[in-house]
């Protein structure tokens, strides 16, 4: 009797598992959404992001007539997952996350627009002022200087483009060495702002971060952590969406973003984004990153 009970339990479990496995997989058809959810990679303080992406959401809602909401997500991977699975319709990605989303979604991913500054983005290498590390003309020089010095280095977030992938990539290209081979510790402090803070207060000798957060910082902080090297230009952030939203909706969002400077909210948001305005963009400009990721580029592990 008891035996039977448990045998049937096992059978039920097995059936449930089978049912899960064989659920037919299908791609949802194109349709105009009744709501737009915006997500963004978390690379600034929550208050700032809520305020300014909230403004953009209001601008898009006014321009397209579709209810729009910004949801703050605190994990890079979750933003990509949300867009790739249709839980969000519009996403503010960095170059790495764009490429990751492309690898997940293929042609379903559509880049709507990017800022003017995103086409020629730069990163800085900074050093603690008291460490006595002067400006260098290239990173090979830095690697040679660092030999045997036990210096420590910090990137920003692991999934970041301008505070991790590109600085690392330029370093490896120019010096022929991994940062891990040159510095005693290579850490990820979480964000651009903290890289600056930690290098300024001497917790790390050196760090790498993107341009806008450094330019925004106070002169006092900048003096404690001067720039020692500026990287070549690269492509960075963009707004990406799903092709299944339909041509019409995407064009509406595109027009709304390009006309961001026309509304009061939009102008405020642009001020925060350190940009004159949004411009046309196409996924082809990010394909270099897709290739880079596909090539199994060294990401520090």
């Amino acid at each position, binding site marked *: 009797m008891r035996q039977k009970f448990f045998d049937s339990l096992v059978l039920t479990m097995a059936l449930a598992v089978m049912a899960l496995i064989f659920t037919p997989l299908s791609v949802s058809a194109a349709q105009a959404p009744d709501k737009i959810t915006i997500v963004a990679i978390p690379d600034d303080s929550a208050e700032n992001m*809520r305020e300014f992406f909230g403004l953009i959401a209001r601008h898009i809602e006014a321009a397209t007539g579709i209810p729009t909401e910004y949801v703050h997500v605190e994990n890079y991977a979750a933003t990509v997952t949300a867009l790739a699975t249709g839980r969000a319709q519009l996403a503010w990605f960095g170059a790495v996350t764009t490429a990751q989303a492309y690898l997940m979604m293929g042609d379903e991913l559509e880049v709507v627009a990017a800022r003017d500054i995103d086409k020629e983005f730069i990163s800085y290498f900074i050093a603690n002022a008291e460490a006595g590390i002067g400006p260098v003309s290239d990173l090979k020089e830095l690697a040679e200087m660092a030999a045997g010095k036990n210096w420590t280095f910090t990137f920003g977030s692991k999934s970041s483009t301008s505070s991790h992938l590109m600085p690392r990539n330029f370093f490896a290209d120019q010096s022929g060495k991994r940062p891990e081979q040159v510095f005693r510790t290579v850490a990820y402090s979480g964000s651009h702002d903290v890289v600056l803070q930690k290098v300024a207060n001497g917790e790390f000798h050196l760090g790498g971060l993107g341009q806008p957060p450094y330019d925004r910082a106070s002169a006092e902080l900048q003096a404690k952590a001067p720039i020692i090297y500026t990287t070549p230009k690269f492509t960075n952030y963009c707004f990406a969406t799903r092709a299944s939203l339909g041509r019409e909706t995407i064009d509406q969002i595109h027009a709304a973003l390009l006309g961001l400077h026309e509304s009061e909210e939009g102008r405020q948001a642009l001020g925060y984004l350190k940009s004159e305005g949004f411009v046309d963009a196409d996924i082809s400009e990010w394909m270099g990153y897709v290739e880079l990721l596909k090539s199994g580029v060294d990401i520090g592990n």
Partner: protein
Amino acid sequence: MRTQPPITCNVATTHRPPAAPPFSPEGDKRPWGVWAAIFTIAVLLVAAFTAVEWDFSSLTDPDQRRLALGRMWSWMAAFRHPDFSPEFLRHSWALTLQTLSAAVIGTFLAIIAAILLALGSSRAVSVGEENLKGWRRDFPLRRPAALFCSLCRIIQDVLRAVPDFVWAVILVAIIGLGPLTGALALALNITGILAKIYSELWDSVDEKSYEQVRASGAGRLTALFYGIGPLAARSVQSFTLMRAECAIRNAAVIGAVGGGGLGSDIWYQIQFGAWSKVTTLLLFTLALTLSADLVSNFIRRQLRSDSNHPRAVRTGSLFRQLARSYVAVGVALAIVGWSFWFMGWGNNAPPGQERRNFLLPAVELVSGEAWRNISFFERMLQPEIDLAAVGIGDADEVEARRAAGTSVNLFAEYGPLSAWRPAAWRAWEEELSHWFGWRVIKSAAVPLAMALVGTLLGVAAAGLLSYPHSFSFMWESSHFTGESPPWWLKLLRRLQMVIARLTGLISRGVPEVMWAFLFISFFGPGLLAGMMAIAIHSTGVLVRVFSESIDNIPYRRFEQSFSGSRAACFGLVAVPVAWRDWLTYSFFQFEANVRTAVVLGIVGAGGLGFQFSFNFEWFRFEKAATYLMMIIALTIIIDRISRLLRFSRVSR
């Protein structure tokens, strides 16, 4: 043998003498188990300090020490100015309510799911009595029911081994963004933890003590309800409340994927160095911890049915006696009810969003549509084992790896016969490192070492602190010492207790991640910082349960052996009586600490957790899956060891 009616739990019991050491057949009275344990711990400690690299330079080098101290002071000084602007206070208050409701919902769902899962994973319930001896007892293929039991155990191991942020990312694909997603991720994780605890506690009830129930014709479930369940109820209740408190105070996953939560906001604000805001949020967390402590103490007190307890209510009308448990259950249900109401219909707007019913996405769980999105994570099912490196699989690939010199050629330099030479081991290790699988296995050393040293330090500190922390020794000691201390001495003792309790509260109320950041500013990122964080946090968690088990000892046990010194009485009577309970709690804490250490790896200690989250966040699912398998394997191994050695014991 003591006779006791097994059906009621209201039995007057004293603490039983410690059970016979594990593995010892009847008649063997030599306490070799203690020495074996000490020896094992010593060996593990040596291993922990040699297998991974500890950087003590900020302690030993005077220059570095001075710098590090300066950094730590400036870090602490940043906490002097909490942000008390009205809008941020409102924001923090909203987060507090959001955290409370999500954590309560998560824990509530987890308790239900865990009981169901534990029915399967408890051998006493799903398999029953067996006359098997030795390895046959643990062989899963002996009966279908036993296979089912092992399956359930693996499910619960996976549930708690997978870090909660991973559940959250997976749930985003299924039910979208919002506070409920965080609550469900938490629920999945806690289900794994509670199901392990329940099944282990149920299994540790001696078969003899419920055999009357079985003999009178009860089935397995009836035996659980009338025999095993009531006998284990006290421990089950204590652990459940402990877990619920834990979920409320530092569940960083609530709010990580949309919606607000204190824990995730602290993480986030730390990343941007907004220390004044972190301070405010910490104060709110501490207040929440304190209230959760008080409420759970209240529930514990109401549910205490042991009439032998020193502070048991013996007088009062029958109505009052019976009402107590209804009051306790009522309070708990009211909190759960409020949480669901708040999440669904209350003024629950997380910052920047509009108020709405956040429970609605749950409908998608049953609609079936949403489950398709899970195929997004399909690649997690194909872990990268990198067999080509060890010469298995596609011949071309193996050849390519060999040509590139990145395959394992174990005996290239030293044959197996030179095992006596240390150089041979080093060379073998180097060869093995070409294999990804070996690197994965090796990365487990970091969390293990961190958790081991951290737990040992935490247990030692909690043991010492539980003397001033104990209510019976500091507040009510005159009940068994016979002395009548002057008012100032009484005051002094009570002051000691308050200070000890505050210390405990702060060290467990401040999330581990916070402690980790504090020590990172001192020691730099690495093992040492993570270990210290774990030690401090464990001290806080353990001192509470340690002194609770001291306070549960009837005073007459102290009375008969009291010889003038309270401290001696504590050390020679109270601690030995509570020792088995302490061991149980400590081992559970060690198990939890290994998982914490995996998570702390993300903060900068490196090792398994760092590698896993790194690969997961870069969507290198195949590699992430291999590291995840290692995390799961670690959980399973520790769990099976604890079951084998019967670390858990039901205390009543």
